């Protein structure tokens, strides 16, 4: 049961539903994990969001329409769950933070499962301060290497708008790194 269509067929049958869902988790857990991790940065938060994402997927199986691919649908749920999670956290933390994206930078610095060197930390910090939409587009394009067309389906945004978002994101990241790299050299 490796094919998405096979998984979907088995999900419709109550006698094979649970087993098929296990297959779905096995097939997509890592890709969704890394997608979420790049958005929320911290492992523990990612674990929470990933579990919520799969629970949402399970509860929404009946509403899945075959017009979009399974992969697109899963990515969309994972993206929405990540953004919802971040917004909730930011609202809670706003009283103590001057900038809402400071939460993400703190999250990254406190994550024990981040092994990046100075350059990688700098890049992640630069990405963390991007607006949510630009950050997601940047991660999907740069790290996950998802095509604009596919991204357009997942994020329900036009290809032109995505290219513009990516362009702005790259410029901002570049400016951030340039203004901070002298400290590292």
């Amino acid at each position, binding site marked *: 049961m490796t094919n998405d269509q096979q998984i979907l067929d088995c999900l419709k049958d109550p006698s094979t539903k*649970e087993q098929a*869902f*296990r297959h779905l*988790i*096995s097939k997509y*857990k*890592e890709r969704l*994990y*890394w997608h979420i*991790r*790049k958005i929320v*940065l911290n*492992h523990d938060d990612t*674990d929470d969001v*990933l*579990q919520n994402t*799969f*629970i949402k997927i*399970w509860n929404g199986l009946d509403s899945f329409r075959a017009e979009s691919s399974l992969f697109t649908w899963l990515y969309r749920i994972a993206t929405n769950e990540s953004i919802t999670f971040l917004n909730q956290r930011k609202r809670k933390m706003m009283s103590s933070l001057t900038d809402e994206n400071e939460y993400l930078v703190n999250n990254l610095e406190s*994550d024990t*499962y*981040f*092994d*990046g*060197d100075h*350059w*990688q*930390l700098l*890049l*992640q910090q630069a990405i963390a301060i991007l607006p949510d939409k630009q950050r997601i587009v940047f991660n999907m394009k*740069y*790290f996950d*290497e998802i095509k604009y067309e596919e991204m357009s389906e997942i994020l329900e945004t036009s290809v032109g708008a995505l290219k513009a978002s990516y*362009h702005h994101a*790259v*410029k901002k*990241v*570049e400016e951030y*790194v340039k203004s901070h*790299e002298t400290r590292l050299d």
Partner: protein
Amino acid sequence: MKMQISINILKIKRTEIKLFEFKDVKAIYLNIMHKEEGNIEPEFMKRLGTNPFRTPDGYFDSIEDRIMEKIQLPEKKKSTSAGILRILKPVLGIAAMLALVFLLVNNPFTKNTVNTEVSSALTPSVKDDSTFNFSLIDESTLVNAIFSNEKSTVADINPDEMLAYLSSGLNEVEIYSEIQK
């Protein structure tokens, strides 16, 4: 001449092989993408190839079990509570009927005449409610009389709510006084 060309090709190939061996795969990919799509990644981004994030050891091994456990938990709870309700339903029904019979038998209502119009039965002109003889009122009239002050009809009441109400620990006297309100 031919010999010279083949040596040059070999040299190029060696250089390429070295490049692919030591250069970061990500950087190569970005170079290709840069040419193909007119991408705009600055130079520093090409230096970064490996994933700086990691997960706890064996994290992905147990994730299916944890998620399936979370999914099954609310469903089990739902089915358990439904099971209890299924067992209690007939018992509560019988208890409710007995309570009603007990009420009707043990409360001697002496007044023999009751208007069939419910509204008149509940008007302020009736001075002593306890003297009604409820046995003379047909069931639908009685039900209408009880619920006439409420916006909803009996049909609107959920049977589960009714059961919950009947089983809420009221004794017969309390139920009777509730009905009389």
